[in-house]
């Protein structure tokens, strides 16, 4: 038997599928065709079958069904718990870039108005710098610095939201490396399922693409860590064991991601054992 979008063919007789485009679309989604002995559909058969009037009608009906299937597919892909987290994390990282860029530019501008001002040898954090600049300047300079201050506040709020959402979507990963770094890992992998499919060795160098490819192509030393470097236990580790910590952490993250995908809840005994194992890796013998 051959199954087509408009009906079934068996022994030369055709059984058209009754119903509107919605019913046909549900049927197309549910069917899996066996490709052995498959013959593609023929519009003339569909006409003889009574599924449509002529060629134009065949294509119009087929298009209607395909639109419904595609729209359903898009909705389904966007309904994943990780989809919005990806957008939030991307926005967070881009806000950081924009804020840094504008702050740097405004400092340069401010310096031409106040030649005596210098950032050198001063322990200014970015917030103090912005406040000083916006208070002491008028016009566009004052307005832009004020805007940056507000943008920074938005960024802080968004970071909190990202952490909270990461805790919800990937509780085990978050327990090991914190919400923000977990969200960035998710971003680089492209979602929770792709992340869960990665081996630990790939998670270890996720985000170190340039270094990895230069290692593969030009035989430079291989990168020890990518995104996970942002986690304190990696970047605070003594250089001698930093690679080891990164490796152990990445291996545990690979398991954590799978727990997050399939169990969807934090697994305290796993987290406890992993933390001890990662801490042990950071001890210099």
């Amino acid at each position, binding site marked *: 038997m051959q199954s*087509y*979008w408009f009906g079934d063919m068996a022994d030369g007789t055709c059984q058209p599928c009754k119903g509107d485009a919605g019913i046909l679309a549900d049927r197309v989604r549910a069917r899996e065709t066996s*490709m052995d002995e498959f013959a*593609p*559909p023929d519009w003339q058969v569909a006409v003889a079958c009574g599924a449509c009037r002529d060629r134009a009608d065949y294509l119009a009906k087929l*298009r209607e069904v395909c*639109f419904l299937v595609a729209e359903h*597919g*898009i909705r389904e892909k966007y309904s994943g718990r990780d989809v919005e987290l990806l957008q939030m994390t991307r926005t967070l990282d881009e806000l950081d870039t924009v804020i840094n860029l504008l702050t740097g530019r405004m400092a340069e501008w401010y310096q031409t108005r106040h030649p005596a001002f210098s950032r050198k040898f001063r322990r200014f954090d970015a917030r103090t710098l912005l406040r000083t600049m916006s208070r002491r300047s008028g016009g566009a300079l004052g307005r832009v610095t004020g805007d940056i201050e507000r943008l920074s506040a938005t960024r802080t709020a968004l970071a909190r939201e990202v952490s909270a959402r990461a805790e919800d979507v990937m509780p085990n990963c978050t327990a090991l490396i914190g919400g923000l770094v977990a969200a960035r890992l998710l971003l680089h992998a492209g979602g929770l399922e792709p992340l869960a499919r990665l081996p630990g060795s790939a998670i270890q160098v996720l985000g170190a693409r340039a270094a990895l490819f230069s290692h593969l192509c030009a035989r430079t030393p291989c990168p020890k860590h990518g995104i996970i470097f942002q986690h304190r236990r990696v970047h605070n580790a003594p250089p001698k064991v930093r690679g080891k910590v990164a490796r152990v952490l990445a291996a545990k993250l690979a398991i954590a991601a799978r727990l997050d995908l399939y169990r969807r809840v934090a697994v305290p005994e796993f987290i406890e054992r992993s933390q001890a194992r990662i801490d042990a890796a950071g001890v210099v013998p």
Partner: protein
Amino acid sequence: MIWIDGVLVSRGQGGIYGERMLSDARIWDPYRSKLSALYHQKKGVELEPDMRVLYLGAAHGTTVSHVADYVEVVYAVEIAPRPMQDLLEVARRRTNVVPIMADAAQPEQYAPLVEPVDLAYQDVAQPDQVTIALRNCIFLKPGGTLILILKTRSVDTRKEPGIVFSDAVSQLTGDGGLMVRDSAWLAPYHHDHAAIICTKS
């Protein structure tokens, strides 16, 4: 193909992706479209008004819209949701485009929808591009043409593009039983991309 003073164009409603117009025709930019680049290399097959085309890796529907200007119907297969949203917009304005949300590597997902076609065109960034193309040959009519845009860096970043190319050709002729009629590298328009034109016997 329609050329106006050495510029490849297609005739249809404009404004699909901000393309420039030339005396009421849409300019088909070889730097954006690999198929246009192939025509600029003076290779490829003439698109005829009665042709049925299977387009694998339709993405945002940019090239699809130009192909649709020339042929009777285009079956456009794309899996990713974000490009699919754009492709649906294109398909709403081009009534001869059939948008199919499915994985080109799994023809069984969309087999009941696609009729026999004269031309199969594939432009997907997957390591097993050639296998995907061969699996889709079931939709080709006898004597039909397959245009495979081989993205050599997607097959293997470390291998020389030339080696990836000759491996692909031998796989197409060997396991696939296709006849390789012509081929071309798409430089300077697209780097490390080759087009392989095959005929199904």
